[in-house]
């Protein structure tokens, strides 16, 4: 160090004006970096800012972090952003959120790398301010303002979020978190630290690139259409594995592909998916597993590279256009980029060779590479070759090009990762484990069986009317078989309503043959078709040839209606009907029995289920009758055991019932919802929220061709029921008339 810089350094140290001893250790290094990247004016501002941070009264940490981070931030976004950053810091200092200053400064460099302009960084700071303002709050009765629970977590996650999302995406993600967890400090912190499931789900939704879910059908069609292959496609998450990126692979459970792909240069994301699938199809068609035990890892790697090229050559023979995609995705290692004196170049050599095998215009000059490229092409010219044969070529390549430096720990990785290829796990067969004699004595590991008592939950989204968007996978619906009671009870109920049943029977008989369809243009028919007759007469009078087919006849077509009856089994059903000893539940039971009997008489497929909910984590959907089940003792027994409890999360139950009904092949699909109150649940404070969600569910069902109809037993239902169901509802005020009303209603709906 020259005397001059040493002097300058001392001057700077004085200017910093701090007595924190920790500074001395790093000051020289920080200043060296600062002096190389900042202007003189910038250095002054840098030291000023650092001095202010040192005097915040928050110890040495903010100052130290700033001293270390700022030069690299300034190198990316320019030193003029400093005032904005300092303004943000002073705002935090003045609010209860001063704890967040350290994480802000700490992550600033990483954020700046993702947002490499002063404007974008500024936008990010505005977002931070917004988050701070909206989540810092006071609790009524406490004379303090509480710091934002999510802010430090958010700042810590910011680099990672920005890695996956655009700034707009981050903004949406933050908005969602604030909206849903404003008053819930623990959950808020969980959300902003990316620990809760919905936080990850919302992030997934906002990611840039092409999401697997959006192209899944196209990929299925691709596999089926172009390759005549079918396999389950299973996405794996790429968002949460920072160190080791997962690689595509396939096994007997399906083909695993990344959940999101980005365009790579001229190659579109969908084509990257297709390249992966084509490559895997190639293995499935042309590769034979080899016994791995006798080969070294290097030899195996070489075999994999050669085999990958072999199958890709065969694939390109079938579809020449794949060459453009493969070459667009295949890295092009620069010859001589790797120095064999101190680095292991095996990967580099093999990647170059792989490129050369696929790309006729590779331009490499290495003699061995050219020889083996030629041998490879000669082998392929003779036909398909085989994994065995190509392995032989690969082994001789390894022997020929082996260098002592291949064993070095320092491996040249740049430009050698071919990310559309799978991990080749299917190419190898290991004999070793289990082959030795002692292995026979080893106790076999038996997988502990998982105790599944019911079906696994299905997750459904819920509509958030504030933001007009779905909360993904918000509600868990557990479906279970309804417990059974005594079937004779239901028969008794039917006996009791024999009078109603007799009336119904008369209507049912009338209904059975229905749907008269007119057949026109008949030469002989039951009636004269006046329109056609007049047209014929005009033709005749006009001298033209009249059409003699002037009659029409009729034909009857069958009913084709599938009905799903969804029963609200919430606690309020246990109330007694006014002026009667019976509860609403018992009345409903009667009505449902009668309806089920009537529908059975007509022969329409009917499903019955009851639902109740205890927060969004536990929506119970109880199966009483399936479309395929007959109206017999088993179903009656379940109906007899009907019990009420908990709350009414209607939207989730309707979506679940709809997913069964939607799969029916019927001309008309009808969902009847029998309920006694408005949708509500104990974890939802806003009374509109679940009403809006149910309305959204009705709209969804409508687009799926399902007609929903509500029978409400709540006399005050008019206030909300039309918001949900439009005009498709009936309010039954006199619950005692329900057993007569319900079947009649159904009949008039389907007449």
């Amino acid at each position: 160090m020259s005397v001059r810089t040493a002097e300058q350094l001392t001057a700077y140290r004085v200017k910093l004006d701090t007595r924190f001893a920790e500074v001395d250790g790093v000051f020289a290094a920080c200043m060296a970096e600062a002096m190389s990247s900042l202007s003189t004016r910038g250095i002054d501002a840098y030291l000023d800012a650092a001095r202010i941070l040192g005097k915040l009264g928050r110890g040495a940490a903010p100052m130290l972090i700033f001293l270390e981070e700022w030069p690299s931030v300034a190198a990316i976004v320019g030193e003029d952003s400093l005032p904005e950053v300092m303004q943000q810091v002073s705002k935090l200092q003045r609010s209860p959120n001063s704890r967040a200053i350290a994480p802000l400064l700490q992550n600033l460099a990483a954020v700046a790398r993702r947002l490499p302009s002063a404007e974008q960084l500024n936008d990010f700071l505005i977002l931070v301010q917004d988050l701070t303002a909206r989540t810092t709050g006071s609790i009524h009765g406490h004379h303090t303002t509480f710091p934002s629970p999510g802010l430090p977590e958010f700042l810590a996650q910011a680099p990672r979020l920005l890695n996956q999302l655009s700034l707009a995406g981050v903004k949406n993600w933050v908005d969602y978190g604030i909206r849903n967890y404003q008053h819930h400090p623990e959950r808020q912190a969980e959300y902003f630290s990316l620990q809760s499931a919905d936080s990850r789900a919302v992030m997934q939704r906002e990611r840039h690139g092409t999401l697997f879910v959006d192209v899944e059908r196209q990929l299925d069609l691709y596999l089926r259409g172009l390759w005549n292959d079918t396999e389950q496609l299973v996405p794996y998450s790429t968002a949460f594995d920072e160190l080791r990126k997962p690689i595509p692979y396939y096994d007997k459970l399906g083909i695993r592909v990344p959940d999101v792909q980005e365009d790579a240069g001229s190659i579109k994301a969908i084509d990257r998916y297709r390249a992966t699938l084509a490559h895997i199809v190639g293995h499935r068609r042309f590769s034979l597993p080899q016994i791995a035990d006798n080969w070294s890892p290097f030899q195996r790697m070489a075999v994999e590279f050669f085999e990958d090229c072999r199958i890709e050559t065969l694939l390109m023979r079938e579809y020449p256009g794949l060459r453009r995609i493969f070459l667009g995705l295949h890295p092009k290692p620069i010859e001589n980029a790797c120095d064999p004196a101190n680095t292991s170049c095996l990967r580099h050599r093999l990647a170059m060779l792989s490129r050369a095998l696929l790309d006729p215009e590779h331009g490499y000059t290495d003699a061995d590479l050219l020889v083996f490229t030629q041998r490879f092409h000669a082998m392929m010219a003779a036909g398909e070759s085989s994994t065995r044969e190509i392995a032989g070529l690969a082994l001789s390549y390894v022997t020929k090009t082996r260098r002592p430096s291949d064993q070095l720990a320092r491996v040249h990785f740049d430009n050698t990762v071919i990310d559309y290829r799978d991990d080749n796990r299917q190419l190898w067969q290991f004999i070793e484990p289990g082959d030795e004699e002692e292995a026979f004595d080893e106790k076999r590991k038996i997988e502990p069986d998982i105790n599944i008592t019911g079906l696994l939950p299905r997750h459904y989204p819920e509509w958030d009317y504030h933001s007009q968007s779905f909360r993904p996978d918000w509600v868990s619906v557990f479906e279970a078989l309804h417990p059974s009671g005594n079937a004779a009870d239901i028969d008794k109920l039917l006996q009791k309503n024999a009078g109603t049943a007799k009336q119904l029977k008369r209507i049912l008989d009338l209904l059975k043959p229905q749907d008269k369809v007119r057949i026109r243009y008949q030469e002989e028919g039951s009636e004269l078709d006046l329109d056609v007759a007049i047209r014929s007469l005009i033709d005749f009078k006009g001298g033209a040839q009249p059409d003699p087919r002037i009659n029409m006849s009729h034909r009857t077509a069958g009913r084709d209606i599938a009905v799903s009856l969804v029963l609200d089994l919430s606690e309020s059903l246990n109330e007694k009907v006014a002026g009667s000893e019976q509860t609403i539940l018992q009345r409903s039971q009667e009505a449902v029995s009668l309806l089920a009997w009537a529908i059975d008489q007509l022969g329409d497929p009917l499903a019955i289920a009851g639902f109740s909910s205890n927060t969004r984590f536990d929506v119970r959907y109880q199966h009483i009758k399936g479309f395929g089940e007959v109206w017999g003792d088993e179903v009656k027994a379940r109906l007899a055991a009907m019990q009420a409890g908990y709350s009414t999360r209607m939207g989730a139950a309707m979506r679940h019932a709809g997913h069964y009904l939607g799969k029916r092949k019927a001309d008309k699909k009808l969902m009847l919802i029998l309920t006694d109150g408005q949708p509500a649940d104990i974890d939802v404070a806003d009374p509109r929220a679940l009403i809006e969600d149910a309305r959204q569910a009705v709209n969804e069902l409508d687009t799926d061709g399902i007609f929903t109809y509500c029978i409400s037993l709540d006399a005050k239902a008019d206030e909300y029921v039309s918001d949900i169901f439009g005009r498709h509802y009936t309010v039954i005020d006199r619950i005692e008339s329900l057993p007569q009303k319900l079947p009649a209603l159904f009949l008039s709906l389907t007449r």
Partner: protein
Amino acid sequence: MVDKDQYRVPHEPFYRQQGNEVALYEAAYRNKLPVMVKGPTGCGKSRFIEYMAWKLGKPLITVACNEDMTASDLVGRYLLDANGTRWLDGPLTTAARIGAICYLDEIVEARQDTTVVIHPLTDHRRTLPLDKKGELIAAHPDFQLVISYNPGYQNLMKDLKQSTKQRFTGFAFDYPAAELETAILAKETGLDEARSAKLVKIGHTARNLKGHGLDEGISTRLLVYAATLIKDGIHPHDACRMALVQPITDDADIRATLEHAIDVSFA
């Protein structure tokens, strides 16, 4: 008397045999057995019949069936004219009189009561009663009845009655194997083998998707259209899009898949 020659097939239609169907048909004709040809749309059913009519040197009367067709449309009817009424033979009657091959295309489209009128012509009687006219026509010795239908359309409503089906000998047609289809495209349009083979490959892509959003795969007929367009100097991508993709689907995902197949095939 009707002019027989107007129904003759004047030039040899191009037909490439898939198996031994020509010999089998000749045997059926020698013995005047009614014939049913079935197979997906555009696979060469009608072309085959046309070819056989030419090869046998017999007139061919083709009737395209539709659901408004009645028995009278086949056998004939009285027409009103200024002086009263006049009888006009329908195509089936004409064929039976002059000894032609009567080809009822897509017979399932016709209503079932209509198809029953062909019954007496298809068994040992070989007669056609015209009950309105009070005439019983004995079929000409050269007369033969051929029907075609596409089992792809088959649903509960549109199927032939067993009593109708069991009056015919059957030929099942399918899209030709890849090499044969390539040869057909090349011969029919004059397009070179290499490009024809690529078209056939695209055709197979779509046929694999049948039932997964496509009701029918790309037919040989559409492939011929595409080949004709390419031969005319249209760029293969545009020709395929126009002749192979647009006609068969409005489904965006399927379209994207087929267009990708076109891109990678015609690189």
